């Protein structure tokens, strides 16, 4: 496949989506970690307190609503989770943009195959949240 590297072409968008997604998630995760340590200096001063963060049984935001609520309160765990969600969403976005790449190449077979992959991904999120 010869990649079209004109600015603004789907192939360029594809690599920008990946780079942007990874950089954004990296920044947000770092910011969330920083916020946690600033708001809870005891995690820095006491190793016992720090250990509580990674113990099994601790509760973490596990719905989008939790994450949004946590963000409103500027909670470090919610910010880190947002970064992780951006990281999870990046390859999904990349699949979506790939559909555009194939459409621009007038490659219907691969536009269809890629659309099925995207549908399967969406299905897995639905199944995951219902289970």
């Amino acid at each position, binding site marked *: *496949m010869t990649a079209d590297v004109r600015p603004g072409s789907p192939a360029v968008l594809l690599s920008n989506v990946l780079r942007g997604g*990874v950089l954004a*998630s*990296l920044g947000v*995760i*770092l910011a*969330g*970690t920083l916020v*946690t340590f600033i708001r809870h200096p005891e995690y820095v001063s006491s190793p016992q307190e720090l250990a509580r*963060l*990674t113990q099994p049984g*601790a*509760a*973490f*935001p*596990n*719905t989008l609503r939790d994450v949004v609520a946590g963000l409103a309160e500027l909670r470090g*765990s919610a910010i*880190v*989770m947002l*970064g*992780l*969600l951006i*990281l*999870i*969403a*990046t*390859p*999904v976005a*990349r*699949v979506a943009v*790939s559909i555009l*790449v194939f459409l621009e190449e007038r490659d219907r*077979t*691969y536009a269809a*195959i*890629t659309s*099925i*992959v995207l549908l*399967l*991904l969406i*299905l*897995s*999120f639905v*199944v*995951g*949240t219902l*289970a």
Partner: protein
Amino acid sequence: MTNLRVAMVLELATTTGALSGAYLAGRLGGRWLYVLFGVVMAYSSLMMFRKRNTEIAGASRPAPWADRLRLHASYFDEQLGSEVSYRVSSTRIGLALMYVAGMISGLLGIGSGALKVPAMDLAMGLPIKVSTATSNFMIGVTAAASAGVYFARGDIDPFVAAPVAIGVLLGAAMGSRSLSRLKSSTIRRLFVVLLIWLSVQMLLRGWRG
């Protein structure tokens, strides 16, 4: 270097596999899966070790599926300083292996690149660099298919995931930069070492239960 067509065709199998894995999780004991995974890794490392001196493998077997799906391609090899064309074969076997890889990553929560690279390199005859780059692209997609399940279950500890994510992202950025410059045989040798290490880890985990 990523073969987007190969990635998408195989993603059909890995995402279906990841979905089955998410469905089976909790219905199957993880223990024998670790053992199975460990044995498969050990076998792959042996097969890859036997191919260690091959720079570029030329698959010349007839490949009706790969022909129809136009999977054959080429990439620019910085280390060789030339364009390398390659043919893809055994698409159906690749699909079956990817289904298993997807299921295992859904069940065990591991990015199954260690299964994807040998499947593409050994079974489908893709050059090791293309296998690595394509697997890199696919891992994210397969992981996303099962990550939603783990998130909904509240199994993602942000403070365990944060340092892991930061380290992996920085390491991956450095790794993909050197990939093109390294010799294919060096990458394959590195991969053999990694597979042996993974295999031992998985077998130990299965053994201890």
